[in-house]
């Protein structure tokens, strides 16, 4: 923006210069000519000339195909209802994006980690987390990701991402996390 305004100012200056020159060209009838140097064109009012702003440089977002790309631009976690393991409607766009990303980067291997909230007993939650991991795995496979690229594990209730004790925390902890194991840039 600033840069463009500046160049407009320069353009104006140039036009003023041309106008001054043409005015000088169509002056009065010939007179005894005493040749004098043409007066310099009227100087325009001084305009401040700030130095051009600095150009900052940074990476252009995560490297495509990297783990960071997957986590930031796709999303690595989907959530489940209490005691449920079917993929929720609101998780499907994210899993669609996961499968598209995995199809684009076919060398990537992932592990789906099923997690549960603390409102269940340890062994049952291990089994429930395995169901969640496999629901996500099945979804990705049905969307074109080769099954042999996907491992699954359940952490049961052993690895909560929110250590609070209330519905908000429990909701966050009922999830399936897609971890990239290898093959990312």
């Amino acid at each position: 923006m600033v840069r463009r305004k500046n160049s407009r100012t320069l353009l104006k200056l140039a036009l003023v210069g041309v106008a001054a020159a043409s005015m000088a060209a169509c002056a009065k009838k010939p007179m005894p000519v005493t040749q004098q140097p043409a007066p310099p064109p009227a100087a325009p009012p001084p305009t401040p000339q700030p130095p051009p702003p600095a150009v900052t440089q940074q990476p252009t977002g995560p490297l495509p195909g990297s783990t960071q790309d997957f986590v930031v631009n796709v999303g690595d976690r989907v959530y489940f209802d209490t005691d449920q393991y079917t993929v929720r409607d609101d998780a499907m766009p994210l899993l669609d994006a996961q499968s598209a990303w995995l199809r684009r980067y076919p060398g990537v291997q992932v592990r789906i980690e099923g997690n549960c909230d603390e409102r269940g007993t340890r062994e049952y939650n291990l089994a429930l987390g395995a169901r969640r991991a496999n629901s996500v795995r099945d979804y990705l496979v049905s969307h074109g990701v080769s099954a042999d690229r996907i491992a699954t594990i359940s952490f049961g209730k052993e690895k909560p991402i929110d250590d609070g004790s209330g519905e908000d925390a429990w909701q966050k902890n009922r999830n399936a996390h897609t971890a990239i194991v290898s093959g990312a840039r």
Partner: protein
Amino acid sequence: MTQARSFPQRLIALVFTALCALTALALAPPARAEIEVNVNRGDVQPLPIAVPAFAGGQVGADIAQVISANLQRSGLFRPLDPASFIEKDLSAAVQPRFADWKTINAQALVNGQVTVEGGKLRVDFRLWDTFQEQQLLGLQFTSSPENWRRVAHKISDAVYQRLTGEKGYFDTRIVFVAESGSRASPVKRLAIMDQDGANPSYLTSGDSIVMTPRFSSNSQEITYMSLTPEAATVYLFNLETARRESLGSFKGMVFAPRFSPDGGRVAFSVERGGNSDIFVMNLANHSSTRLTSDPAIDTSPSFSPDGTKIAFNSDRSGGPQIYVMNADGSNPRRVSYGDGRYTTPVWSPTGEFIAFTKQTGGQFHIGVMRPDGTDERILTSSYLDEGPTWAPNGRVLMFSRETPGGPPRLWSVDVTGRILQPAPYPGAGSDPAWSPLLN
């Protein structure tokens, strides 16, 4: 209870009253009609007992202290304050002055003496019925001096058995999961301690998450599971040799192991494609047999003490409930029908109960029921109670309890629900497993 009745009968009556309180609603009137059954479990009063310091110096005092603490924690005894004792400096070789003990209402007296000779510790003790003025028990234990705590536990077991008619559980150990680190990044290590909290030590390094240790019912061997991001694996671990062995590799997760009563097999869950089923492995040849093939979650198998049946957890009817099947997998039937979610069935060593974790009304409970599902009794209630384990005599359960956001702690409750208390371990712990009696 009449004054004339002898002392052990009185205590047996106490225990029997507690058991009857537990089951009175469903059982026919007990055969022992002379015992007054009162379903008010608050009526059970612990028996006043005196355990003066054993003669023989500090170790004698220490042994008496361990015995006293054991008896106190059982909830069935009330050790009297030594400051109230009239007769001092008792000798195991001389009859006590019964009148002195009756005066302070000590209904039983345990006295003894310790000698160390030739590098050996010898402990003589006697148990007296002070009102009947009779010796009930006189035993001598010999061991190495550093083993004095075990001698104290063995004396505790002898006293408990003589006075209640049931085997004791004091010469036992607890394996559990000692927890540290944050909740999101927990460090879980297998640990072991005596049942009274003494001699705690770690068995694993904490490199991987370990959980659900379980004792063999006839040896110092445990089975547990280890969880890494790559695999869930079941191990066998011999406490005496420190030898560790994987149950073998399976496709999918392996979890929820538990020994058969003879120690020759392990039942466990295998997860394949998200479906968990129960298998059993013969440890002699590592051959495994699938016992369930339902699309539901089937886990937490627990053998009946006669080995003929397996209780397990399944959500084949919707929510998790307790089922019992034959040990070959045949004839599974649901036994829990109460309101709520039932998990972690554990058959009692005596065979008379199945302990469980129940969730209802936003609370977790430890409870017991008959193996056919009748006589359900809820023993505890809190934000999160889970994972009961039985003392080898089937009288006491240990479990883990969490408060919201807090670390898990070990707790115990007796089978009547009357004696609920923190276990004698000050740190964070979960998944306790009670050993059989040591040899």
